[in-house]
């Protein structure tokens, strides 16, 4: 019975993280809020009507339908859910497959961990969508996936439906192992120079082109009715690169220096693919025109640099300067901690570079949505878009702003009041479990002491010899 009770507590606690009120109905009404729509200005004392996870109406004259779950946001601010264009949360195990210089066969989507607590912590910072990237150990890294932070759901319910998958590229010091390397005595991996990084990418796409031709050729001959064809072997390393060539997969390229950014743009042009985003791109301000001309986006930090040689020539004006030259810019976290205050990171671009408040907000909402190709569904507060919303107690660009509620698809996934209220009972549960374990351990110790005494008694009541009289080999270990 106690067990049943504990299981019940466990499930209650699980539910506690997804407040019941949002699940009870598919109609949610947020009222009396200052709504920062990002695309349609600011609405004071406005309301948002949410139906089946989508924004059904926004304005000052929207009325709550009967039966709607009402969230009163008087004095509070609503913004579109924050989109983190560079994240490594929710991954089981290493985010790098660091052995091969081209690790495009691996896929982050295979190892999504919906139980990673950083999902919940990011929600508490207003993040609703994250671009989960492979690490930067290889010139061509693994496949990447855009997820919604649906805390409590299963791994296959996290990916953003219909979002184009991506692949991580990396240039410079990390892929050439400048600052780390295999243990002494083992040979260093190729590439060890920036020249080598370029060559690895070039080689991989040369192979991918041949591989694509192999399949095209095969499919053509098969369609023509040719008999006894040998089906080409599927190559999981080259398949995603072919998708890049066909525009079916986005390239997110980790980079720092201006020269390597230009290098990748040249290689991409030569092979006929696009770079979707340059990540980090700390020297992006130096080559902003070239980046803008290529159509690539830049996803950078606000003021985080100098942690290695290639990250020295950086300035906090980077985001603003790139934007000024026509680059689509976002600010990302690359860190489960920084992701919890991306609103403040965006605000820094108001100080450095004089971005308007709305443009600063775009750096973490609409712009990353466009970069990830999902702006038709998220990134702003507009009728028809997903109800991914964050409610702050202050202007989100203020250092005093604290997230009160985070909604995804119209469901509350984080509720600050609820979280605070649940803490004592969770702590109580924890103490009870610790106590229970302690008791069980003591009980076991007692039992052991008892049974250590027992066998002496048992020696006296020796077993009868086997009834069959058959001589047999005795083997120790009969007692459990």
């Amino acid at each position, binding site marked *: 019975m106690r067990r049943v009770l504990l299981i019940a507590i466990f499930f209650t606690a699980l539910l506690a993280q997804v407040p019941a009120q949002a699940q009870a109905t598919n109609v949610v009404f947020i009222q009396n809020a200052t709504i920062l729509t990002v695309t349609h200005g600011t609405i004071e004392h406005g309301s948002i009507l949410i139906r089946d996870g989508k924004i059904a109406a926004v304005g000052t004259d929207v009325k709550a339908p009967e039966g709607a779950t009402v969230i009163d946001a008087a004095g509070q601010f609503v913004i579109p859910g924050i989109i983190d264009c560079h994240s490594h949360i929710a991954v089981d*195990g290493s985010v790098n497959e660091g052995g091969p210089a081209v690790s495009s066969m691996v896929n982050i989507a295979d*190892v999504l961990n919906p139980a990673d607590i950083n999902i919940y912590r990011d929600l508490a910072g207003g993040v609703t969508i994250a671009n989960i990237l492979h690490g930067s150990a290889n010139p061509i890294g693994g496949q990447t996936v855009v997820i919604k932070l649906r805390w409590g759901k299963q791994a296959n319910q996290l990916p953003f439906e219909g979002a184009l998958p991506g692949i991580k590229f990396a240039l410079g010091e990390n892929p050439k192992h400048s600052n780390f390397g295999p243990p002494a005595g083992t040979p260093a991996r190729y590439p060890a120079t920036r020249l080598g990084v370029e060559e690895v990418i070039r080689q991989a796409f040369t192979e991918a082109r041949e591989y694509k031709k192999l399949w095209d050729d095969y499919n053509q001959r098969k369609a023509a009715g040719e008999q006894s064809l040998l089906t080409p072997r599927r190559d999981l390393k080259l398949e995603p690169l072919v998708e890049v060539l066909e525009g079916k997969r986005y390239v997110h390229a980790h980079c720092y220096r201006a020269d390597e950014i230009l290098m990748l743009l040249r290689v991409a042009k030569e092979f006929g693919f696009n770079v979707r985003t340059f990540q980090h791109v700390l020297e992006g301000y130096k080559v902003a025109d070239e980046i803008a001309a290529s159509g690539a986006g830049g996803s950078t930090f606000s003021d985080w640099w100098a942690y290695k040689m290639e990250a020295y020539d950086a300035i906090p004006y980077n985001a603003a300067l790139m934007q000024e030259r026509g680059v689509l810019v976002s600010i990302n976290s690359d860190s489960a901690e920084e992701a919890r205050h991306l609103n403040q990171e965006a605000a820094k671009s108001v100080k450095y570079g004089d971005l308007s408040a709305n443009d600063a907000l775009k750096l973490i909402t609409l712009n990353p949505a466009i970069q990830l190709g999902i702006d038709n569904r998220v990134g702003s507060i507009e009728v028809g878009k997903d109800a991914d919303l964050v409610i702050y107690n202050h202007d989100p660009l203020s250092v005093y702003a604290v997230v009160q509620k985070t909604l995804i698809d119209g469901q509350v996934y984080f509720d600050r009041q609820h979280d605070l209220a649940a803490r004592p009972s969770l702590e109580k549960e924890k103490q009870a479990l610790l106590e229970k374990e302690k008791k069980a351990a003591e009980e076991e110790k007692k039992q052991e002491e008892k049974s250590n005494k027992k*066998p*002496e008694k048992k020696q006296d009541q020796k077993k009868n010899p086997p009834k069959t009289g058959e001589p047999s080999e005795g083997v120790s*270990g009969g007692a459990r």
Partner: protein
Amino acid sequence: MRIRSSRERASLILIAVWVTATLAWAHAARGEGGEPRYFAITNARIVPVSGPVINNGTVVIAKGLIQAVGANVAIPPEAWVIDGKGLTVYPGLIDAGTDLGLPKPEESSTGGHARKSVVPSEIVSGPEDRPGATPWRLAADELKIDDKRIATWRNAGFTSALSLPDGGVFPGQGSLINLAGERPGNFAVKPAAALSVSFKPIGGFFSFPGSPMGTIAYVRQVFIDANWFAQAEPVYDANFTKFERLPYDRTELVIDKSLRSNEIVLLPANSSVQILRALRLADEWKISVVLLGAQQAYAVTDILALKKTPVLISLKWPERTKDADPEAEETLRDLRLRDLAPSTPGALAKAGVKFAFYSDGLAAPKDIFKNLRRALGAGLAADAALRAFTLDAAEILGLSDRLGSLEPGKIANVIVTDGDIFNEKTKVKHAFVDGRWFEVHEEAPPDKPDEKKPERRGEFPEADAAVAR
């Protein structure tokens, strides 16, 4: 020679009869290993598992097989009779995942080195180099029958075990072995019983595969390759003047053969996240799998039931790390898992998911039973537990026609106890493996180590002590 009297004649006849009889006995003894092959356990409580309990009946064992089970069963005249009054007869238990009888990976002669690949390890560049792939290794081929645990396990009631090779991503194939025999060949009931797959990265940071996503990609590519080769080979053979020669790859051949013969594929999955992941991969790869670990299965019983995926539950329940920093903060999540893991068997039984148990490296059978009792205290019925240890284990491993219950025609793996098998105080009195009888002796008290080894009467070394004479 003249016979002088009838007395003398009588003596001679007696001598002749004696000589003939002795010769005949000696012949028979040689032919049958000098040990009895017929047994009858009478007046015992019989738990056949496959049918209702017989409160007072007889089990007849003949030449390695169970011949008869029932309340009114004829006892063959040649049978050795064991009075089973007050005793209970069960089918022998199956430990569905051990390294019993297996050398440690570094001692293995046929591979098993985690990082071994077809190329020197420093240049492993991807799945094509087949790092840590030795799927052809069979546990049955590597048995060290002097492993003392074989007798320890048998004396605790285990008569079979699934022995699993370790090391690498495709470590090899598990063998279902019976826990007795004079030579390794006598042990193996099903040498290729389960194809083992591991998702543990083996390469470290600098060699493939160095991440869980790397091992998954690797396994995925190998399954694709195995399938591709099977399709491509006949096309190539019929048109070898047209195509470049196909490479030979033992991994592909072995895995293709294993999948075609419907050998079960063991995927490790302990947490609910890992379980759901393994189920998705099984669907994607179109393989039927048995999950290994499954301790958090209590949270995902519905989908396991829906998919009809059997699981082997590790009885090594999660516990607080020994020597853990006493100041270290425990997470509620870990505490909940440690508390609820033993409820998994009961929850699976309720949901109708087939499961068996395995010892997962536990040092002694007493720990297996101790941990099982936690499951019994957390909602698992005793008869379901017994089934999991016998008939269900046999069924999951595709051997329920031969093992797992007391039925005529089944392999005579039988144990006789002085009480309920899961009761702490119960002792196993007799164990039969392939119809060979082992009497079980009491363990010496731990405080008298010099008495621990019972006096050995035989002249055979420790390895052969496993065999009753």
